[in-house]
């Protein structure tokens, strides 16, 4: 037999590729157990016959070490920021300092329904986090409720709706404008709020096209949803004019904060003309994410939008004690006022917020600015090494990420997807591919500030090797990955005929 190997890029060490792990149901052995539950039969007798199961549950039966080994093997198959560089553009897969988890664990025994007088520390932390986020973004008020960026978008557009209704303009405003580089969640959030979406194209420099934007504006516009730096990793050069144009027709400007990692201590969205911005704390403030979260998406707003923020609010009384502006958590807010109401149970994903707080406190204002500047430097350092070997969609200095195009390689028979798969063999997590949609064969690369220079160099060398192979031996690139537990997956069949359920072999 051949033992397949993979390379650890940080050290160059070759190691055997771990074998795939069977499912728990496949290693099940009847009668095996990790714990023996005493009194089970007596308990069974207490259940009325009408409610008793007729057939066994069919859960896998295993010993405790089998279960532990199963999950450890799965973890060994995993690629994570803790095992290597993860340049997944737009996702900010920076290293998550372990101190974040340690601090979060201090709060692990709190219950969200504890009396407020017994959770003053937790409420203080949340209130301070609100203040820190407001300061960092140049906004006036914050809600920590949204569970992630997309929910923060939805929350903000609901608030825009309430704002226009309050001003008696709710009926006539029904269009939300997004650029053609927007995250897919932007138009989705607008549509979920019942609005129509107007898409505006990018100009030849990768900015939102100002003339097209002005042509699309009118007094039926709710607002504009804009990411800055945009999804091409470029700073919107005429941002002030863009925001002024939207404000001139009575619209509001929503900041998609997905790319906030480029701006910490560099520029404040509130000073740039945005009326609100969300923060993906799980990206920017280093809390683990990927594969479904949990995340958190605090929404920071300017004064005119404060009254519409979701409730309950965390309020500080004259004695310096914190309380929620609702009498009880299980009742609707006493005074909803103009608020759009609750968007998330309790106070959001508390554990994630504690990690973000810890990260910000650990780095401080200067440290956060350094993180952003280093992220921008790392991205430009990589771009400088790669621009000869791949096409660059909009070739100017980038912010914290940049978008290459594999168009040149495509003519040699190698697509962006093939390049991504070949990177797996080089020991790296692939970048985001085919996004943003305006760039053909897009490869969106975000190294983040936490990679050492040697790792950036190793990644650039791997990308250059793949570009060379595309010229000389494209078939080998198309055949990758070969040094992974699974070879090339059939994504088309998986999408067209997905098998979503395990079936017991008969």
């Amino acid at each position, binding site marked *: 037999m051949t033992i397949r190997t993979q390379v650890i890029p940080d050290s160059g060490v070759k190691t055997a590729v771990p074998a795939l792990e069977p499912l728990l149901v496949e290693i099940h052995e009847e009668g095996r157990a990790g714990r023996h539950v005493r009194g089970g039969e007596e308990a069974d007798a207490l259940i009325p016959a009408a409610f008793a199961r007729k057939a066994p549950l069919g859960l896998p039966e295993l010993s405790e070490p089998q279960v532990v080994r199963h999950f450890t093997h799965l973890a060994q198959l995993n690629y994570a920021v803790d095992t290597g560089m993860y340049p997944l553009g737009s996702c900010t897969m920076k290293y998550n300092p372990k101190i974040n988890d340690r601090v979060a664990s201090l709060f692990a025994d709190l219950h969200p329904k504890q009396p407020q007088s017994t959770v003053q520390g937790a409420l203080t932390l949340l209130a301070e986090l609100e203040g820190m986020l407001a300061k960092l973004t140049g906004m006036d008020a914050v809600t920590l409720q949204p569970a992630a960026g997309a929910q923060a978008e939805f929350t903000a557009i609901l608030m825009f709706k309430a704002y226009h209704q309050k001003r008696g303009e709710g009926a006539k405003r029904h269009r939300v404008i997004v650029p053609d580089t927007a995250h*897919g969640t932007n138009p989705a959030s607008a549509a979920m709020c019942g609005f129509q979406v107007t898409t505006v194209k990018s100009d030849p420099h990768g900015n939102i096209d100002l003339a097209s934007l002005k042509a699309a504006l009118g007094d039926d516009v709710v607002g504009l949803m804009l990411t800055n730096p945009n999804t091409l990793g470029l700073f919107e050069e005429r941002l002030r004019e863009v925001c002024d144009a939207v404000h001139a027709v009575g619209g509001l400007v929503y900041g998609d904060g997905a790319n906030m990692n480029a701006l910490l201590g560099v520029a404040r969205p509130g000073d740039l003309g945005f009326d609100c911005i969300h923060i993906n704390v799980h990206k920017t403030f280093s809390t683990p994410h990927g594969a479904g979260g949990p995340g958190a998406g605090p929404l920071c707003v300017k004064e005119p939008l404060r009254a519409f923020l979701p409730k309950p609010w965390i309020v500080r009384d004259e004695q310096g004690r914190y309380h929620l502006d609702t009498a009880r958590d299980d009742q609707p807010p006493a005074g909803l006022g103009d608020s759009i109401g609750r968007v998330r149970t309790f106070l959001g994903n508390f554990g994630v917020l504690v990690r973000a707080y810890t990260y910000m406190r650990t780095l401080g204002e200067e440290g956060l600015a350094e993180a952003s500047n280093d992220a921008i430097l790392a991205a430009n350092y990589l771009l400088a090494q790669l621009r000869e070997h791949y*096409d660059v*969609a909009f070739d100017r200095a980038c912010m914290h990420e940049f978008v290459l*195009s594999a*168009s040149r390689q*495509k*003519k040699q028979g190698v697509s962006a*997807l093939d390049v991504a798969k070949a990177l797996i063999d080089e020991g790296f997590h692939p970048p985001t*591919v*085919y*996004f943003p*949609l305006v*760039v*053909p*064969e897009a490869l969106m690369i975000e190294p983040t500030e936490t990679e050492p220079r040697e790792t950036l160099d190793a990644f650039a060398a791997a990308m250059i090797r793949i570009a060379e192979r595309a010229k000389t031996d494209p078939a080998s690139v198309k055949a990758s990955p070969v040094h992974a537990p699974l070879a090339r997956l059939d*994504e*088309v069949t998986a*999408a*067209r005929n997905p098998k979503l359920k395990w079936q017991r072999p008969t």
Partner: protein
Amino acid sequence: MSTVPDDLQYSKEHEWVRADGDVATIGITHFAQEQLGDVVFVELPEKGATVRQFSSLGVVESVKAASDIYAPISGEVVERNVKVMEKPELVNTAPYGDGWMIKVRLADKGELTQLLSPTDYRSHIGETAGAGGD
């Protein structure tokens, strides 16, 4: 089969139209399916719905991306291609045949003049290819 058949009209967003009396058949072009890659899902409006020229009428999703299909002309949907919803690969194998999307009763025949001729569409995708596509 030509990649830009001479008997059709085209939109800049890569849809084609075959007008036959009051009814027009709409689909996406060979160029569009090639850009999308393997199509895995198609969402179309129901019979009786109205579509508006240059507004989204549905969605076509490939392993790369989900994209809106824009109506090249306005009208009422008289039929939608159930076969292409069940077998999305038809968009790739027969974009001008079994991979058609919907048939609409034309609201305004004048709108047809706003579409591209085969020659114009060929030069349109030539320009697009020059910007980095293939």
